[in-house]
């Protein structure tokens, strides 16, 4: 766990989302599905974000500006320094035979980096609108559907190692359909390193910290 003050390299719009590019500094890019806590200027708490792309000594985070923290991050300008802590949590197990990436909405965030590590496996992505689906450009070759069509209807018949990130209803549906799927969940977090107990989720009948046990969990 390492925290550094790093310069923003640039900010780009991807449909309604923002790709925030930050210099990597001395941080390890981590395993796809791991996350970093990003200082949100003017806010009390940092925000957890998974790595979307890692290349050229740069970490890029795909952010949906839905609240004051994410909006502050999307409003950053080049050269502005922010504190970045990570990598944190448990990422995807990339030792899989027939990977299939499944993403929904802003949940596609960790998939480009994951795809890069897995050599570009097939991917199916779901979005709520054409505009949101512009983010599919981050995963060239992916099959895309738009509501009211759901990604679960695009799941192939043959067995795959599903690695997924998306909204809770999508992950819940996948959990039932693909019992060995690796699912990346999210929860509000104050710290990201096990201190605050804010990100509790129910696992095996007990409330556990998603930042310590996850955020990637096996469906079954």
């Amino acid at each position, binding site marked *: *766990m390492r*925290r550094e003050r790093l310069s923003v390299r640039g900010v780009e719009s991807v449909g309604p989302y923002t790709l925030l590019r930050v210099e990597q500094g001395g941080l390890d890019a981590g395993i796809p599905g791991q996350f970093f*806590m990003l*200082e949100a200027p003017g*806010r*009390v*708490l*940092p925000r957890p974000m998974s790595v979307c792309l890692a290349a050229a000594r740069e970490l890029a985070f795909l952010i949906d500006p839905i609240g*004051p*923290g994410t909006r502050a991050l999307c409003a950053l300008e080049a050269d502005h320094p922010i*504190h970045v*802590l990570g990598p944190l949590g448990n990422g995807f197990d990339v030792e899989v035979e027939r990977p299939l990436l499944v993403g929904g909405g802003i949940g596609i965030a960790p998939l480009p980096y994951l795809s890069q590590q897995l050599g570009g496996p097939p991917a199916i992505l779901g979005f709520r609108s054409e505009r949101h689906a512009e983010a599919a450009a981050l995963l060239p070759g992916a099959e895309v559907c738009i509501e009211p069509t759901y990604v679960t209807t695009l799941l192939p018949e043959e067995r795959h190692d599903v690695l997924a990130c998306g909204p809770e209803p999508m992950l819940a549906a996948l959990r039932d359909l693909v019992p060995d799927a690796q699912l990346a969940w999210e*929860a*509000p*977090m*104050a*710290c990201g*390193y*096990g*201190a*605050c*107990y*804010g*990100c*509790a*989720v129910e696992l095996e009948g*007990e*409330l556990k910290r998603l930042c*310590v046990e996850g955020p990637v969990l096996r469906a079954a």
Partner: protein
Amino acid sequence: MLLNASGCLDALTAPDVARSLHAFVTKTITREPRGGNAPVRIAETEAGMLNAIGLANPGRDRFLTDVLPRLRELAVPLWISVGGFSTAEYAETCAALEAVAAIELNLSCPNIDEAPENAAAIVAACRDATGLPLYAKLSPAAWDIAEAARAVEAAGADGLSLVNTLRGLALDRRTLRPTLARGSGGYSGPALKPVALAAVYACAAAVEIPIVGMGGVRSGLDALELIAAGASAVALGTVLFADPGAAVRVRAELAAELAARDLGHPLDARGLAHSSLQMTVSRSGNKLQKVPGNRAKVTA
């Protein structure tokens, strides 16, 4: 002396952060295991955050057998935060603890009646149950916190931890329903600092026992202010969530703030906020003496 506020650090998931403190304060331990409240448990607000974790902990027995031995391996002085739902429960847990630096009694849990008489009764029962140093953690919501402080001092507390969170509420902007599943939660962060300063200031004038000041500390200057108000140690809470390196930074900033004022030791600043009292500390006995006189001179 820098500590963490109870519930703001898990030494087992962040041992290096725990080692950066003079002592590690555990999350509150209760007799029975507690899963805590249903999510959502935290919410950021404009000047702080709310939490409604609900005293999640493995329970006394599992803490003693599974957690405490692993904490001891860290070789950091341990303060055990003890909670309960009856006087007997507090006292039993205190009696079960040995060879730790101190016990902090969480007397400001939402499920505990915080009337000073009850806080004092709990402290008195725990005093009978243990010879370990007992710190009473009080709520800043008390009508007269100095009265509560005098009551727990008279009951045998060795020190005070000031302050716990204040009850607060956040509403979701879209639904206008409470953001936290439980409704209200404990309010912490920068907005709590003046509340903590007022509590420490009032209690330092009312009691002789040492005070651990906490609430909204983000910088060395914040720590110095709590010391000037009468604290002899400072704990970091919400700031640790944003910055696990906060203890190292705050300690360096505090040293610079002291040096800028020609003060050699943090305790030289203790009580400077009290214009009619000059407080001095016998470091060996850790006892506060109130000496009538002029305010200590400070050179900037």
